[in-house]
């Protein structure tokens, strides 16, 4: 459903992504791991159109989306969250989600209808009691949930989750893992997630892609990827892998 072929991206002299191929199938939960600076967020920015590809092509449901404006890509059904959460700070939670619903694929006509849908999403995500709060009044975990709620508001077909679990405590992670499954099962959304918290990746993902320095070093079921020596070296340092 979402497919990238021979993607490359440079920043000045720095190669952020090198000759990368990937594919996400409908209904999958796919994880992407890799140390800081390995190009995960860059890839998400390329998919969602915030950055332009140097070479290669990204397809969504068979049609090329690389080169389209971000709002067109989003309108086709590619939703995303941001690693560093970017809520619309001056708007309430309900407003944040309502705007997404209004402009998303739900095809609602009135603000009231959109608000209802937004409310149901907030209920789903567990933020309904605080619908009238400003994002500033939420904790990090709450903001991450809001970020997901807003992305769901657009009614995406595939959702790119950028480090949703980072900075959560184990209990919160448990809830978030549960949430990830429910996003797929109840909303029918394919999930592509960047994650550092390996615990979450292990439990949720059908498949894991590992990056290092902009190159794919592994792609497969979580256990296999986690035991891949190159992945361990990428994470814990060369010496750790030898141990």
């Amino acid at each position, binding site marked *: 459903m979402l497919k990238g072929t021979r993607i490359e991206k440079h920043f000045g002299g720095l190669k952020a992504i090198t000759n990368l191929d990937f594919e996400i199938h409908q209904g999958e939960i796919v994880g992407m791991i890799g140390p800081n600076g390995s190009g995960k967020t860059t890839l998400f920015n390329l998919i*969602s*159109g*915030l950055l332009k590809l140097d070479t290669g092509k990204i397809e969504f449901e068979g049609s090329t989306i690389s080169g389209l*404006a*971000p*709002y*067109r890509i*989003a*309108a086709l059904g590619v*939703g*995303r969250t*941001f690693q560093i959460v*970017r809520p*619309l*700070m*001056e*708007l309430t939670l309900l*407003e944040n989600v*309502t*705007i*997404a619903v*209004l*402009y*998303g*694929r739900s095809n609602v006509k009135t*603000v*009231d209808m*959109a608000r209802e849908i937004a409310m149901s999403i907030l209920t789903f995500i567990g933020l309904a009691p605080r619908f*009238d*709060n400003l994002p500033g*009044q939420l904790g990090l975990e709450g903001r991450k949930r809001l970020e997901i709620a*807003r*992305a769901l*508001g*657009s009614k995406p077909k595939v959702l790119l989750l950028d480090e949703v679990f980072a900075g959560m405590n184990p209990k919160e992670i448990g809830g978030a893992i549960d949430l990830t499954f429910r996003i797929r099962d109840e909303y029918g959304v394919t999930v592509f997630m960047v994650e550092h918290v390996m615990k979450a990746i292990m439990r949720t993902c059908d498949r894991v892609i590992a990056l290092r320095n902009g190159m794919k070093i592994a792609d497969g079921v979580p256990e296999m990827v986690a035991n891949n020596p190159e992945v361990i070296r990428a994470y814990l340092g060369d010496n750790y892998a030898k141990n």
Partner: protein
Amino acid sequence: MGQDSGWSKRTLLLVIVFISCVTIFPWLGPPVYFISFAFNVFIYITLATSWNIIGGYTGYLSFGHVAFFGIGAYAAAIFGMWFGLSPALNILASIPAGLVSMLLAILVGYPCLRLRGPYFAVITLCFAFVTELTIRNLDFLGGADGLWLKGLALPIEVSRSIFFELMLVLTLVTLFVANRIEKSKFGSGLRAIKEDEEVAQTMAINTPKLKITAFAISAFFPGVAGGLYACYLTYIHPDIVFDVNVSILIVLMALFGGGAFWFGPLVGATILTFVNEGLSTFVKAEYARIIYGCLFIIVIIFMPNGILEFAKTRMVKKPAKFEAAVK
């Protein structure tokens, strides 16, 4: 959007009573000056409120908005001249004049709205200069001599009152539109753009289209106001209708009141007009200007988000604390 999607009946009643009082005011026979002064206040409210749609809601600070006022004034005058309109019909020509402003806004907005922040401010300022100078240089548009229009052949009190009512209607329409926008899908899209344009794009918001639309709407009402002003003054000149100071003043008025609310510019324009008027009446000219300058400094240091925001945070502070305590 927002919580107060409908006004309570009492508020609505109060507003209607207030508007009715304002409407009958000129027919009570006040000195003509008060009618003219109110007319000017209405113009500033209209300009500041329209500006706010692009500047306050969308976060694109246009520093050349007076250009749309001037274009409207010239368009109305020229329609009157070319088609030999009677003064009454010429007043009606303000509406197509507003459309001319709108059209120009679309043409200019397309490339300019790609710029952000101070760059957008500067390019709109340049646009105002270029328009003004072009009109000044073109003799068939009156050039440096300006244009005279035929005035209504009515006693001054009556014609002033008519313009008062017309401008009042325009102001109310502008405020109504601003209010509707604030609570609509369109307005919420604009707010998303203001908050974070990139995020707005990932929310499938067609930001270029929304920005152009907002810019066009915010140019329309100044255009109509310019047309009315031309008919009111019966003489227009680039110096008069393209005054850069007006451009800056309406920005200040909107931000002064609070750009996030539809009635912020209303409050800002009213306060600043009255303060300036009071100062020029009671204080020696230079001192009046100095006090006026201090006003901006004080407001920016103590109420950086405008008077309304200041008032709102003062009022809302208590519940916020309460909530924190509960948490």
